[in-house]
């Protein structure tokens, strides 16, 4: 009889854990989803899909603390936004590269950036000029230390595509820094 109650408690505990996680993070996830999709319904769909993914891997996610889960949940919901935007009728036939223009950084044009003196600060300042998909790839690679294969699975891209995207992001960053230096020297 004790075994029976323990089993039930585990289920109840997990259900409470899921609800608790949802209440703690739903608004933050929605904020990011809305920022990317610019549509309430799509943003809600993205959050819903993100939680579907979380449920499917709950053993991994339930052990994370608040901060760790927040970091991961933002990445997950952004990935779901990318999926949804790709599937949206308007973009269904559009190649992935054009989708990145839609999700491009929304800051001032490169020429008008004010540069800082060191390489690190230059890079930090120009992060916002990277498109959202490239940023997602870079965060998954360098912050979460995911493999190309794992990143590719999340974003439905091949490992080679991931590799090229990272290379392009670095090249773009170098160009941005060089342009800033020229602007500064003028």
């Amino acid at each position, binding site marked *: 009889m004790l075994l029976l109650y323990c089993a039930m408690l585990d289920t109840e505990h997990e259900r409470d854990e899921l609800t608790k996680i949802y209440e703690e993070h739903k608004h933050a996830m*929605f904020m990011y989803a809305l920022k990317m999709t610019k549509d309430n319904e799509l943003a809600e769909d993205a959050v819903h899909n993100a939680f579907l993914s979380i449920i499917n891997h709950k053993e991994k996610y339930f052990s994370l603390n608040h901060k760790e889960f*927040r970091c991961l949940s933002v990445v997950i919901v952004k990935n779901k936004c990318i999926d949804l935007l790709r599937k949206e009728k308007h973009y269904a036939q559009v190649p992935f590269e054009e989708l990145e223009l839609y999700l491009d950084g929304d800051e001032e044009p490169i020429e008008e950036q004010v540069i800082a003196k060191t390489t690190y600060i230059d890079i930090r300042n120009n992060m916002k000029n990277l498109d959202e998909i490239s940023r997602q790839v870079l965060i998954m690679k360098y912050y979460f230390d995911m493999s190309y294969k794992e990143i590719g699975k999340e974003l439905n891209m091949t490992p080679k595509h991931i590799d090229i995207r990272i290379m392009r992001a670095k090249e773009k960053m170098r160009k941005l820094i060089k342009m800033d230096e020229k602007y500064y020297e003028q």
Partner: protein
Amino acid sequence: MSNDKINNAIFEAFFRQAIKDDYREEIDSIPNNVELSQKYILSPAFELRMKRLFEQEKQKKTLFERNNFFRQAAIILIAIATLLFGTLLINSEARAAIKNVIIEWYDKFTSFSFVTTSSQTSHANLYPSYLPEGFFEESAEIYDNFTFIIYMNGDNERIIFVNSTGSSINIYIDNEHHLFEDHIINGHTAYLAKSTDPDFDNAVIVTTGEYVIEVWSPLSLDVIIKVAESVFEK
């Protein structure tokens, strides 16, 4: 190492660190939940959708993990019983006590055990052709030997349809909140579980020898019998 290589290495190091620091700062800059909840309003339809998702998850756990738990618990109990059997063979009082515990434990649930003959994927084509007005397919999951569909209506009432094949299918329904009755549906053996508590669903279980069909819903038994019958009407 050439200057270019050194510069590249420095750039690479700074680039990696910048990614990490930038993301960390971004997460830290997210407003607290009070501010977020004032600025970003989630629609009631969305909150309901999420509630259903969590309920669905719980239902799935109930269907799968209860089976798993009882299987494991049964193994443990049998092992204990076997162990004790040797030492308690001559003690009739002890034997009676163990027997009572097992009976009492099983008394709480009625178990339906089926063995089917169908292949793995052939179950996938059986669906109800009748649904009460206003019901639509809310979600469908098809696994190797198991189809799980939830139908909903605008009043958030649901019908859960399950279609299983396999060499061992066990369905447990608690006795405390259900009354059981045998039935025949389209010539097939069926079992009706009528709920005596509004918090528990009514259920119809039909076995054809190839498949086991389950229909669960808070709607009346008459309605879900009709849903179950429609699976066989083509």
